[in-house]
């Protein structure tokens, strides 16, 4: 089966000497919902920028849907829809005009472009804004406009660079539902995001990039299974002044009603409950301290930084 994206030994050095990518390999199956995660400046946008032809490629090879970026750039571009991080449309143009215009660049005749723009504007709840200049839209609407624009030529792969940044939770969830739907219809989706909950709930496969290198790439479930340690917070009835000693667990006082503790893969929550009960503490609620993927992300990127510093 053709890979939707295949990156081999991709290296990028900017003119100022900054090494953004240190020879990364990345592979995304067709039909996948894939997240490329990493801290700011890790190389996510450079990677996606190269794939989208917005950044000049350095050494290495990039294949999109089997097409070589070096020799078949036009076919690569036809296979891709790109939703960049920053708004990049003429804000004086009307919403539908922006999409119809973009369709023209892909060779779609006006009638078809208008029909497609209607379809996607309706699906993304922007149809009633079609005659409004883009500058009058809210942040969430502008993001959805860029998604509609990226889909108008019906690409095989959609690249989204932080698509839900600055979008309220209700619209974010409706965007998730839309993206899941088009992924189900066969469009490969690659996204970067800082909302790790988003990546965990949407993406089947994840790669984590840090300092220009891929530090992890695996199915989301496998990555989370491999997590060595989780931190939980328990709320107890009554007032605490110090953290109770829980044998075999590292526990800390959060506030007078809550403690947090680390749980390794070998330990169980039952053991913690038993120890708390033995100390006469009644647990009223328990929750993970952070999103599981967030913990893994912090672990991996911190390790990578420590190795780089060493």
């Amino acid at each position: 089966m053709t890979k939707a994206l295949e990156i081999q030994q991709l290296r990028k050095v900017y003119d100022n000497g900054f090494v953004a990518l240190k020879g990364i390999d990345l592979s995304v199956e067709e039909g996948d919902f894939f997240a490329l995660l990493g801290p700011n400046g890790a190389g996510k946008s450079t990677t996606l920028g190269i794939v989208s032809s917005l950044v000049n490629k350095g050494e290495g090879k990039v294949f999109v849907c089997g097409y070589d970026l070096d020799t078949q750039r036009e076919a690569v571009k036809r296979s891709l829809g790109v939703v960049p991080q920053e708004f990049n449309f003429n804000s004086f143009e009307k919403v539908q005009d922006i999409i119809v215009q973009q369709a023209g660049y892909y060779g779609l005749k006006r009638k078809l472009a208008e029909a497609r723009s209607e379809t996607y504007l309706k699906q993304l709840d922007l149809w009633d804004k079609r005659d409004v200049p883009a500058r009058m839209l809210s942040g969430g609407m502008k993001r959805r406009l860029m998604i509609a624009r990226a889909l108008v030529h019906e690409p095989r792969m959609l690249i989204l660079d932080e698509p839900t940044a600055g979008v309220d939770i209700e619209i974010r969830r409706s965007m998730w539902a839309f993206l899941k739907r088009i992924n189900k219809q066969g469009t490969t989706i690659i996204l970067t995001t800082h909302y790790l909950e988003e990546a965990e709930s949407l993406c089947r496969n994840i790669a984590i990039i840090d300092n220009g290198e891929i530090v992890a790439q695996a199915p989301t479930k496998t990555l989370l299974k491999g997590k060595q340690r989780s931190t939980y917070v328990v709320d107890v009835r009554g007032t605490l002044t110090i953290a109770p000693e829980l044998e075999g667990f590292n526990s800390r006082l959060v506030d007078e009603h809550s403690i947090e503790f680390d749980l390794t893969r070998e330990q169980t929550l039952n053991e913690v409950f038993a120890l708390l009960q033995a100390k006469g503490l009644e647990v009223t609620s328990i929750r993970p301290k952070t999103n599981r993927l967030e913990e893994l992300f912090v672990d991996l990127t911190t390790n990578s930084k420590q190795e780089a510093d060493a």
Partner: protein
Amino acid sequence: MNHPYWVAFSAIVYKEVRRFMRIWMQTLLPPAITMVLYFIIFGNLIGSRIGTMDGYDYMQFIVPGLIMMTVITNSYGNVSSSFFSNKFQKSIEELMVSPVPNWIILLGFVVGGVTRGLACGLIVTVLSLWFTDLQVHNAFVTLSVILLTAVVFATAGLINAIFATKFDDVTIVPTFILTPLTYLGGVFYSVSLLPEVWQWVSKLNPILYMVNTFRYGIIGHSDIPVLAAYGMLLMFTGLLMSWALYLLHTGRGLRS
């Protein structure tokens, strides 16, 4: 015409033309007002005291140059400001991610600039008919020279916009290079009036060739050989188009 390249080219030209039509108060009206003032002040008031230039009524003499000046300024200004605005707003990325070849991008913007240049030239020509009788001496020369000139300056405008990093950069070339070269390009006088050394210096100015050849097309008089002007225009067209294509190919000012 269903070829994707043709559709993409049409889309760029449509956008460019719609842009300058939408802001006609900034694009089509100013040259009309400026040139009417030129016709009244230089042509009527001062021109009546100057008498004739190379045997032609002064108004008749300056009208071709003023039309050419309008075409040059507007072809250049349209592409430099539009392309730079696209860069500034990042909407140029819409073209960069799409499968439009660089030569279509270049042609699309150039044709947009040429259309505005010629539209302004036509407006000024119509207005000039209130002040003088224009009789076209050679229609082929008139049309081909004005078209080639518009292409040259529209392409130059694109190159300017590629290098520009701020709005000031798109006004520097028109202010400090284009305007002086136009004024010294024989719009208002015949170079035969100049001392020999300045005649020689003037012949280094490409705009002199364009203005004179266009004047030849209209009134049948030129200070320089018409064929030399075509040679220069074709050379500039080739050089500037190649340079612009090279810049688009390397992503200069567009891709890091």
